[in-house]
């Protein structure tokens, strides 16, 4: 089964990744991570986050993936040892020296970072000799090349399926250091590939800025390579992004598992992903062939959103109550609603929030694809006429996504089997996830000697079952409940409040068991 690996730059993204279907999550600590600019996690916080993820069946991979000096190695080793003790499932490593120190000494797995530039079987074999059990392959491999490496069976493999691409091989790029003194090998890459360059006689453009990767349309082919995990890039991206991308790829992988990928509407999913974050669309990177000229976003290297329509004629600016606004006639190819954000092609600082929509002379909440209307936007107008614009924020989508990672959200349910039984005067409730079983016990209410046990009526049994199944607000869903229990005495002397107490206690115990590294 191909795992889905999602990024967690901070606590909200971690929840977003878990609740939207990640099988594994990768995150960094406050030191020694290749995304020093992310919020990251303290060691103190890590134990609770690992517990949260493990209870919900998600593994945590900790990125310690920069190069280290002699002075830093002992500190890095100590951090890893502590994170290992707290239950981390794997460490993603770039530094050969750190790998040498950790091999055989930590319980967690060691994964070779993409910064180790593994791209052939010789690299895989050397990584295995270093003590790694998984390699994050270089992003520049084609699907065929990925398949060959997986078929070699040397170790687990992981490939990127979505997110930002580097123009240059990771781990071999000194450009950041050369232009700014900030090294990609130290987690402080200054993203020099998103700057403007020119060749001898040309003008300046973003020659080294590729569009983001999106493998969703051919996810079945990528999964068929036998790769162990598909990785979503984005520790510096928002929780909305993590929620959107994780859920889209979860649906994709589930459809592959169900044999229904042909019916999977990847185009609709890609539109949502483009709104949340894209750079002038997406590309397949090097997975389906060489990167093409059209895959290089030479006009603008940052977020563009989903192409939504075009202004008809010019925009007219005005001010109201001290607020800058502009109005224009828009022809749209995607739904646009009040509260959505837009920006204009090649002028990302021009645009704003849609304030008012008028269609057919009347105010409307939205403008549907293929329609034209008059839009009032709170922001700065572009110069020029007939300018394409992008939807950079979808209010309804954002509300839908943020609901998935709000505190207390429990969208993913771990199926558990419940059974109620009695031994002497004690009633037991057992919950099992197939690997761990937790039991709670309570003393049944006693009856007078000689008094026959009252046979619980079917109504009581049904209500009792409902009490056992009422695990809403927890990560568990009772999918199998042996009710009514085979033993007719099991429900005798049992009250609803007793069952609630048993259920809560069993849930807590099962959660505790699942917090451990499985």
């Amino acid at each position: 089964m191909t795992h889905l690996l999602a990024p967690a730059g901070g606590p909200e993204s971690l929840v977003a990744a878990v609740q939207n279907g990640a099988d594994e999550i990768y995150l960094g600590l406050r030191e020694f991570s290749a995304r020093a600019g992310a919020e990251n996690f303290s060691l103190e916080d890590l134990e609770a986050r690992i517990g949260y993820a493990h209870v919900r069946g998600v593994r945590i991979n900790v990125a310690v993936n920069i190069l280290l000096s002699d002075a830093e190695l002992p500190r890095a080793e100590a951090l890893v040892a502590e994170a290992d003790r707290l239950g981390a499932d794997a460490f993603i490593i770039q530094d050969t020296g750190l790998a040498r120190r950790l091999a055989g000494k930590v319980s967690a797995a060691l994964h070779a970072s993409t910064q180790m530039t593994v791209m052939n079987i010789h690299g895989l074999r050397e990584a295995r000799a270093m003590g790694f059990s998984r390699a994050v392959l270089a992003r520049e491999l084609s699907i065929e090349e990925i398949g060959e490496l997986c078929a070699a069976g040397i170790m687990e493999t992981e490939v990127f399926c979505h997110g930002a691409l580097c123009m240059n091989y990771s781990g071999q790029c000194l450009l950041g250091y050369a232009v700014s003194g900030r090294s990609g090998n130290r987690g402080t890459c200054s993203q020099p590939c998103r700057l403007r360059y020119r060749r001898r006689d040309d003008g300046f453009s973003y020659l080294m800025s590729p569009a983001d990767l999106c493998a969703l349309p051919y996810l079945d082919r990528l999964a068929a390579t036998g790769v162990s995990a598909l990785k979503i890039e984005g520790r510096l991206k928002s929780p909305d992004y993590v929620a959107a991308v994780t859920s889209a790829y979860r649906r994709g992988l589930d459809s592959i598992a169900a044999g229904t990928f042909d019916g999977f509407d990847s185009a609709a999913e890609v539109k949502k992903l483009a709104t949340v974050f894209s750079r002038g669309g997406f590309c397949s990177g090097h997975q389906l062939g060489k990167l093409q000229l059209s895959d290089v976003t030479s006009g603008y290297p940052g977020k563009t959103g989903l192409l939504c329509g075009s202004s008809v004629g010019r925009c007219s600016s005005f001010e109201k109550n001290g607020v800058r606004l502009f109005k224009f006639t828009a022809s749209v190819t995607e739904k646009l609603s009040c509260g959505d954000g837009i920006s204009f092609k090649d002028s990302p600082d021009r645009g704003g929030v849609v304030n008012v929509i008028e269609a057919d002379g009347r105010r409307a909440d939205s403008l549907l694809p293929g329609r034209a209307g008059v839009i009032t936007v709170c922001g700065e107008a572009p110069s020029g006429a007939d300018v394409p614009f992008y939807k950079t924020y979808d209010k309804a989508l954002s509300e839908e996504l943020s609901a998935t990672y709000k505190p207390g959200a429990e969208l993913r349910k771990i199926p558990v089997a419940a059974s109620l039984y009695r031994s002497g005067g004690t009633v037991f409730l057992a919950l099992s996830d197939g690997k761990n079983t937790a039991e709670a016990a309570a003393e049944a209410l006693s009856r007078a000697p000689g008094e026959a046990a009252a046979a619980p009526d079917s109504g009581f049994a049904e209500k009792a079952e409902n009490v056992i199944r009422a695990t809403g607000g927890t990560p568990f869903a009772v999918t199998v409940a042996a009710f009514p229990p085979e033993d007719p005495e099991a429900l005798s002397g049992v009250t609803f409040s007793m069952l609630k107490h048993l259920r809560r206690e069993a849930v807590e115990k099962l959660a505790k068991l699942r917090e451990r590294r499985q």
Partner: protein
Amino acid sequence: MRSTFLFSPDKLSPSRGDSLLDADFIYLSCIPLLTGGRQAREDSLEKSSARAFEESLTDFRRRAAAAKSPEKVPKILLSTPFISKGRLFAGFCEKFAEFAPLFDGFILQNIGDAALIEKLTAEAFGAPLAKPDGKRFLLAGDTAFNITNRESAEYWSGRLDVLAILPELTAAAQQSLAQTFPGNIIPEITAFSTAVITRSEHCLAAQGGFGCGKCGPCGLDAGRLIDERGRRFDIVTDPLDCTSLLLGRTQEAPPAGSGGFAGLLSPLPKEHVTPGARSSSAVIRRDSGDFM
């Protein structure tokens, strides 16, 4: 000791002066050996490029033997491909037995290359790293091995003879690390040098990808990228795979009037030397122009 990296064997010619005879290690890119330019897909031109390469080497060795004592003759190491996949890499492996005897060893561009060369030499000459004359090929790890601490260098102990330290470290930090290297590996420090600072699967010269039909100059002089501050990065392309390298300067230029890099080799004060630190000097890599 001193080393330099050359992208073309033309730089070995006598018309460039014989100063390279003073190098201890000369590293040569395999790109001209395996491609000879855009038309390299035509077999006859590829062969002529290999012949020219061999002639340059033979002539240099003859001049070196005439000018130097045997132990002072520069060692010439062929670089493995900068990108360890694709047609160039496949050609390197296929033709290895033919060209390997021309060289004293190999400088490696990927962590998998040590095992690769061990395998190729065993297949071609009977034992890992065995040369046809019974001697042993030298192996050097280039800056791509990302060596920034002693532990990383220790990993390669017993397998590499020379190992470059990552040039993102300051010259002083490189020298300090070099002092602590395992005794059986010669550390290499990059002084003011032109180095490969990026490796891209994408052709940065033409921007069209393989077979785009928009090819311009290709090979060793494929143009340059210039940033908005006027910094220039030369482009070297591989015409077989349409990949590219950017070359740029590493380390600061030596201070005016410093007279070169002699200061880099001065011993550290005793209190800064780790007990058991090596006392022999490192290899200092510099541009071939610095030899002149």
